[in-house]
C-alpha cells in the first residue's frame, strides 16, 4: 500500500488507511534508534530541503534527523517571515528549489496555505511542517503514534485538547486525524480561543476542564502565547492558569492511566505545572523521539517506499 498524494499537506486530506500505514511504518523506524548505527539507506541520493519561514528548533531538527537517518542530503533554508512581503516571493523561491532538483521540500510558514502554493507550483514532494493556524500534520501523526503505542489503539479513546484552539494548527491536525481513527475529541479552552463552528469538525466543546477530566484517556496541552493576552482574548496568564492549567490538583480526578502530552515548547507553571510535566503520566519527551520516527515514515512513504521493507 502507498500514499495517494505526492504531498503531505494536512491530515484532512489523508484517509484512515493512509494514517494507519504511516503509523505502522513508524514503528520499525523507532526500533532502529536502539541500534548503534541509526542510519538506513532508502533516501540515498535524494535531497531534502528544510524551508523554514518561522523559527523552529524542535520540528526542524526532527526533520533533519529523520532525513539524515534515511541517508538523504539535507539543505536548511531559513527565511524570516518579515521578508515575505517584500523579498522574494514564495513562488519564486519554489521555482529556485525546483531548479536545484530538490526531491522534498519541508515547509514551515506563518501563513495558512503556503504549502499548497508550493505543491501546485513545483513537482517536489511537499511536506507541511506547520502553516499558520491551518495544519501541522506530522505533529498530529506523532501525537497519534504516541497514543497508539501507549494505549494499543486509537478507536474509542477520549482525547482532550486544552488551550488556544483558535490559533492552533496542532489542534486542527489532531482533530482531523483522531476523528478518522475513531477517537472522540474534546476541545477545552477560553470561549475567545475556540474557533467558530469547530463542532462541525466533529468535536465537543467545553469551557470547564473539570467537567470532563475524569473521562479522558489523553490530555494534549497546547502552548498558550502571552501575545494573545494583548489582543484581549483573555485577561491574564494567572487567570488562564487558574481555570485551564493542568496541575496535580486538577488531575486527582483523572483516570490513573491518563496520558499527558504537549507539543512543546512548554510554559511551565502556565498551561502545565512542572510536576505534571515531569510525572509518570507525561509522555512529552517520548513525543520528541516518536516525531523523528514518524517523519522518517512520512519521507520514506512519500518517496514511494514499501511498508514491508522498511529497515532492511
Amino acid at each position, binding site marked *: 500500500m502507498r500514499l495517494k498524494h505526492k504531498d503531505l499537506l494536512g491530515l484532512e486530506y489523508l484517509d484512515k488507511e493512509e494514517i494507519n500505514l504511516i503509523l505502522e511504518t513508524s514503528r520499525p523506524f523507532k526500533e532502529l534508534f536502539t541500534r548503534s548505527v541509526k542510519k538506513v539507506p532508502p533516501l540515498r541520493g535524494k535531497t531534502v530541503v528544510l524551508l523554514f519561514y518561522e523559527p523552529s528548533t524542535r520540528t526542524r531538527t526532527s526533520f533533519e534527523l529523520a532525513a539524515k537517518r534515511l541517508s538523504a542530503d539535507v539543505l536548511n533554508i531559513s527565511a524570516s517571515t518579515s521578508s515575505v512581503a517584500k523579498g522574494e*516571493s514564495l513562488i519564486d523561491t519554489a521555482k529556485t528549489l525546483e531548479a536545484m532538483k530538490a526531491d522534498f521540500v519541508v515547509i514551515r510558514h506563518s501563513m*495558512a*496555505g503556503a504549502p499548497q*502554493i508550493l505543491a501546485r507550483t513545483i513537482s517536489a514532494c511537499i511536506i507541511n511542517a506547520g502553516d499558520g493556524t491551518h495544519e501541522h500534520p506530522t505533529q498530529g501523526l506523532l501525537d497519534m503514534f504516541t497514543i497508539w503505542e501507549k494505549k494499543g489503539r486509537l478507536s474509542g479513546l477520549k482525547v482532550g485538547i486544552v488551550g488556544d484552539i483558535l490559533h492552533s494548527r496542532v489542534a486542527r491536525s489532531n482533530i482531523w486525524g483522531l476523528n478518522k481513527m475513531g477517537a472522540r475529541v474534546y476541545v477545552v479552552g477560553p470561549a475567545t480561543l475556540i474557533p467558530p463552528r469547530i463542532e462541525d469538525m466533529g468535536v465537543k466543546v467545553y469551557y470547564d476542564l473539570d467537567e470532563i477530566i475524569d473521562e479522558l484517556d489523553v490530555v494534549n496541552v497546547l502552548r498558550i502565547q502571552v501575545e494573545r493576552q494583548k489582543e484581549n482574548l483573555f485577561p491574564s496568564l494567572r487567570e488562564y492558569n487558574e481555570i485551564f492549567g493542568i496541575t496535580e490538583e486538577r488531575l486527582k480526578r483523572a483516570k490513573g492511566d491518563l496520558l499527558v502530552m504537549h507539543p512543546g515548547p512548554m510554559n511551565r507553571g502556565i498551561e502545565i505545572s512542572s510536576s505534571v510535566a515531569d510525572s509518570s503520566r507525561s509522555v512529552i519527551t517520548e513525543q520528541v523521539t516518536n516525531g523523528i520516527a514518524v517523519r522518517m515514515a512520512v519521507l520514506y512513504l512519500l518517496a514511494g517506499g514499501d511498508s514491508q521493507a522498511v529497515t532492511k
Partner: protein
Amino acid sequence: MKSIIRNGRVVDPKNKIDKKVDVLIENGKIAKIGESSQFRPGDVTRSTVTIDAQGKVVTPGLIDMHTHLREPGREDEETIASGTRAAAQGGFTSICCMPNTEPVIDSVSGVKFILATASQEGVVNVYPIGSITKGQKGEELAEIGKMRIAGIVGISDDGKPVMNAQIMRRTLEYAKMFNLPIISHCEDLNLSLDGVMNEGFTSTVLGLKGIPRQAEEIMVARDIALAELTGGKLHLAHITTRRSVELIRQAKKKKISVTCETAPHYFSLSEEDVRGYNTNTKVNPPLRTKDDIEALCEGLADGTIDCIASDHAPHLDEEKDLEYNIAPFGIIGLETMVPLILTNLVSKKILSLDQAIAKLTVNPANILGLEKGTLSIGSDADLTIIDLNLKKKIGSQFTSQSKNSPFIGMELGGFPVATIVGGKVVMKDGKLI
C-alpha cells in the same frame, strides 16, 4: 450620420419595452424606435449604417456604478484607457470610478483630471465618484459641493468605511443639498480587523482569519439609522449577507431613502471556493455562504437590491501570487459581469431579463441622477447588444490590464456582442473597434 439596429429584441425596462423593433440612431441620439413597417422611406437612406441584431437582445447601454480604474497612481494595474476598454468589452457604456486612487480624488483638480483623461483616452462614459473625507481618512469632509460642480455623481470612501458615525451623519445631511448619493462601504474595522475571508466553518478549517458578517451588518444598520435621522440619500455598496438584505428591505418599507447593490461574485461564489487558497477569491467584503447567496437572490428578485455592480478591482499577478494572508483584496469584474448575471440569475429564472437589465440601466441611472439607461427618443444613443445563446469559457486573457478573476476556466452563457456609445460602435463581435 445615421445607423439602424435591425431585427433585435429590444428590452428597455424604463419604457417597458420588450419586443422585436428596430432602433434608428441619428447624430448620436435615439431618433426612432418601431417595427420595420413603421419606418418611412426617408428614415433610412443608402448612407445609413445597418447593424443586424437578429436573434440578439438590444438594451440601453449598461451602467456599472462601481469600478476601480486605478488611475491616477496605479497605472500598472489599470488605467482609464484600459479600464474603459474592459468596460466596452463587457458591454458597459457608462461606468463610475471610485476615488481611492493615489492621490485620492478628494478635490476639484482630481475630478477634472479624471474627466479630462476619460474624454481623451476613454472609450465609454466615465462618471467620477468623489471621496467623502479628505484623503479618505474619515476625519474631515472633502469639498463635496465643489466636486459636485466639477462633475462627480456620488461620494464614497469606498475601500474603507466612514467609521465615525458623527462624520457619516454630517455627510448625509450636507450632501442632501446636492442630491448626491453617499455610497457606503459597510465594514466595522474593529470587527473585521485583519480577517481575510468569511468567518465560519471554512475559515476554521483553512486556518484563515475570519471576518464576521456582523462587521458588514452593524454598519448597514448604522447607516440606515443615520439615513432615517438625516433624510440623506444612502446607497450601500456591495451587500453580501442575508441580514443586510433584510435590514434594507425593512428600511425601504419604512420609506427611508436607501438603495443598494451587490456584485456578481457574491451570488456566483461562496466561502467554499476559498478552499485551495486561490487568492483571486480574496475580496472585501468576503465571499459568504450558500444561505447568503439565496438571500441575495431573493433580494434581487423582490427589488430590495436595486443594482448589480462589478466592484472591478484590478491587481497584478505578482501582487496576487502570494500567500492568502498578504495578497490584496479584489476581483476584476467588468468583462464577466453580464455573462455571470445571465448564467446565474436569468437562466435560473431568479430574475427576468427585464429585471436584470433594469439593475444595469435605469436603476443605477436613477440613483446617480444620470440621464442614461433608457432608449427614450432623444436620449444618448448608448446601447448594448447581447447574444443570450453565446457560450464561452472565460479565458485567462482580459482587456483589463489585470487578470485577477476567480472565473477563469468557467463556462458561461450569454455575452455582450456589441457596445455602442453615443451612436459610435466601440465593440463589435467581441472585438474592440
